């Protein structure tokens, strides 16, 4: 992995871009050299602000954690440090991961480096923007319902959500534990393969982390789609809005066929597809409301005064969470009420199984599924909003299938429309990251992406 900048320079570059991008929450003032000579020796790395780093403020872009300084490192921070990397900044995100625009951050919206009037996407928007602006070659994110892959597509970088359990979640401020996945942003596939090699592996601190040995993804990388069955997710790609996106997507399909891939069309019942977003929101909101019950201003975080401990909690949580987050906690809590679980939370968990079964069935016909990451480019900041509940368009939310199933899934840039990037999404069955990287590396050769954003670190 190569870095344009040293750690110190990277921190400065991020600082310099703050007025335009507002992508960082905390910038390390004077990053210290890391004596470890691992595969990431000297590489500056950005962490999403929900990744605990000992002694370095970590807020998850929430006011309630504004003063939180972790006393422990997330497992992946130890892994990065052991590999020689240097943490240079904590990046902006939607508060506690809850959002897809990166507008809902305590520090305000992050801006898209290609056009700062547009959103980065979220919730890992800051990491996506800082990778796109070439401040660092690697930024860590988390993906609960496309929170890495969507911003990666909007910002024209590679976003990888590995298999659930491939990378330890210990030390990552959660959103929804059964969907949360640690992943990352890079600007090329070989870097992504190397990053996963460093980050993956069993961690006894995370009982859901996998015991499967970690392959040498980078060394074994063979850019090829030869003989691979690639399923084109027609239910989604049929809904691409822009002609230039449609054209680029279809051209890629043809190029893949020419490169030796066997193309098959795969589809899913739209009735089921329409359930993706509601099922996702029901499960995610419910798990989130419990996961964030620890944020009460008692043992850490910002405490607001009150006459009783109940008042302290209530005042701290009212002031500490945005209106949007509190609304989602109410919805999540409601779906967990005993009287509602059967028709909401548990029902969503059952439909999740039906969705996963249907999604798995698609892989009986193919090794990988190719889809557009989104059917349009990043919207304008002022025109975007997070739908709090209710139905979203499934073509915008389909990547949540990989969170339901735990499957590894990545997005990579395909082209530009109106000066903004759009991307593709490639997904493989569980723990088949090598296969995913091999195909993605071939696609990378085919696309030969050379575009640069307007906001570029100098």
């Amino acid at each position, binding site marked *: 992995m190569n870095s344009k900048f040293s750690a110190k320079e990277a921190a400065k570059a991020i600082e310099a871009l703050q007025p335009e991008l507002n992508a960082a929450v905390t910038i390390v003032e004077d990053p210290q050299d890391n004596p470890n000579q691992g595969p990431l020796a000297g590489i500056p790395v950005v962490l999403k602000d929900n990744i605990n780093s000992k002694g370095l403020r970590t807020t998850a872009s929430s006011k309630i954690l504004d003063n939180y300084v*972790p006393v422990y490192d997330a497992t992946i921070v130890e892994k990065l440090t052991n590999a020689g990397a240097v943490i240079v900044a904590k990046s902006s995100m939607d508060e506690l991961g809850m959002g897809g625009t990166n507008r809902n951050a305590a520090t305000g919206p992050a801006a898209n480096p290609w056009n700062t009037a547009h959103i980065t996407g979220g919730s890992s928007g800051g990491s996506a923007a800082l990778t796109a602006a070439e401040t660092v070659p690697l930024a860590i994110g988390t993906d609960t319902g496309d929170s890495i892959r969507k911003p990666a597509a909007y910002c024209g970088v590679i976003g990888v959500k590995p298999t659930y359990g491939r990378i330890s*979640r210990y*030390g*990552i401020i959660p959103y929804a534990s059964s969907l949360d996945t640690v992943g990352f942003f890079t600007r090329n596939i070989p870097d992504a393969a190397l990053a996963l090699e460093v980050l993956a592996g069993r961690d006894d601190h995370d009982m859901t982390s996998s015991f499967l040995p970690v392959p040498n993804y980078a060394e074994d990388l063979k850019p090829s789609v030869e003989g691979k069955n690639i399923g084109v997710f027609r239910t989604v790609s049929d809904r691409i809005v822009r002609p230039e996106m449609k054209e680029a997507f279809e051209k890629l399909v043809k190029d893949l066929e020419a490169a030796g891939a066997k193309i098959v069309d795969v589809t899913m019942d739209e009735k089921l597809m329409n359930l993706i977003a509601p099922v996702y929101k029901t499960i995610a909101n419910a798990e989130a409301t419990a996961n964030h019950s620890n944020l009460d201003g008692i*043992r*850490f975080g910002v405490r607001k005064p009150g006459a009783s*401990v109940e008042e302290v909690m209530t005042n701290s949580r009212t002031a500490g969470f945005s209106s949007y987050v509190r609304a989602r906690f109410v919805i999540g809590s409601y779906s967990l009420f005993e009287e509602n679980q059967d028709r909401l939370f548990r029902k969503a968990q059952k439909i999740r199984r039906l969705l996963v079964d249907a999604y798995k069935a698609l892989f009986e016909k193919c090794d990988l599924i190719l889809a557009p990451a989104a059917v349009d480019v990043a919207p304008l900041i002022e025109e975007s909003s997070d739908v709090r509940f209710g139905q979203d368009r499934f073509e915008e939310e389909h990547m949540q299938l990989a969170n339901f199933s735990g499957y590894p899934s990545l997005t990579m840039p395909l082209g530009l429309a109106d000066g903004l990037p759009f991307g593709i999404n490639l997904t493989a069955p569980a723990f088949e990251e090598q296969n995913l990287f091999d195909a993605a590396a071939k696609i990378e050769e085919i696309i030969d992406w050379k575009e640069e954003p307007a906001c570029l670190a100098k």
Partner: protein
Amino acid sequence: MSREVTIGIEIHCELKTKTKMFSGAPVSFGAQANTNTSVIDLGHPGTLPCVNREAVRLAIKACAGLHCTIDPLVKFDRKNYYYSDLPKGFQITQQFHPIGKDGYVTIETEDGKKNVRIERIHMEEDTAKQFHKDTGTYIDFNRAGTPLVEIVSRPDMHSAAEAAAYVEALRRTLFYLNVSDVKMEEGSMRCDINISLSYDPEKLGTKVEIKNLNSIANVQKAVQAEIERQNAALDAGEEIIQSTRRYDEPSKQTVLMRKKEGTVDYKYFPEPNIFPIRLDQAWIDSIVNSLEELPEQRLSRFEKDYGLSSYDATVLVNDRDMADFYEEVMKHTKAAKKAANWVIGDLSAWLNKNGLNFAKNPADPKAIARLITLIEDGSISGKQGKVVFEEVMKGADPDQVIKEKGMIQVSDDGALLEMINKVLDENPKSIEDFKNGKNRAVGFLMGQVMKASKGQANPKKANQLLTQELSKR
């Protein structure tokens, strides 16, 4: 007709592990505040639970000891509520799949033995400890995350005595199995007792819960007081309010802590951070098969093998350390009943007086056994035994003490007769006096005999033989 009392009991026991249920921080009692915690116990953001194998092992032992069916697939759930002693805002427990189900424990009642059914045993984590003072509440998180088992009975008890017997039986069992310290006074065992009264056994009355009981004696007193209170209230036409009460020792009454308004919705759902854990059946079997002797097994063994009364056996078995010591003593003596008396009586009293208990008992079982044998065979008197006992408790050898104090009694007829006749031969004057009706002479002669035996003659026997020999002269 009197109202039927129905009692169900929930007991929380801290498991005797080195570390917490879900973290590597040490479990301790009485450590300096907030020195035995990890980020997991404090509910710091990003932390994840990791299940302690030893806690599972101890829970399995509890299940086996209480005759429960063990579920080899361990699952956890979240119980959601906000309280300052609950760091995560939820407690990890086993709501939907308890590790143990459908067991029982045998209790002693006035009408003999009775089984109280156990509905479930589940693992969970303890909360932090709060100290309420005028200046506010002070929180110590050392206890947060300590492994617990909660044992829930069926509503099978119908009197204060049965409730106390149940708590005692559980306490004894868990102590015998080395599952828990079961110290009610330190809170390592806590019970919540639900009591309701009704004329119709099919239709239970309003439940009242009693919490914060610190001894088994208080369990009985509190339940009795609550039964009386409820009876009086119902007699007066009052309604019983669903509530939580505590026992107030000075007034010997239960007092209201809080009313229960409706049922709290804890929004239980499966813990997403812990995959279901499949326990190895061979491991479960090895734990179950190497279980320590249960108290009820020991009780019947004591009655059968040592011929002890049910009362003596129960007193011994209730205190495992006392029973252990008794068994050590019995390796060196055959006087089972006498040994039981000494252990339950003099030794217990001595320990008590010295602020000790059987867990910290300095007595050498072999020495105590020897002392008991010496008394049993008449080598020393019971009274002398008490003197020897005091010395033995200071570490002395009983035979040595007896020798030093010259306590060995000469009871052998031949030896005594020889001594007596020698004394009589040497004191013709006294024989004369005796024959002249001077009874004082007997006293003098007896003194001479004791002197000749260096005080070791069995006085009763010597006196009897002296009288006999005098009459022959």
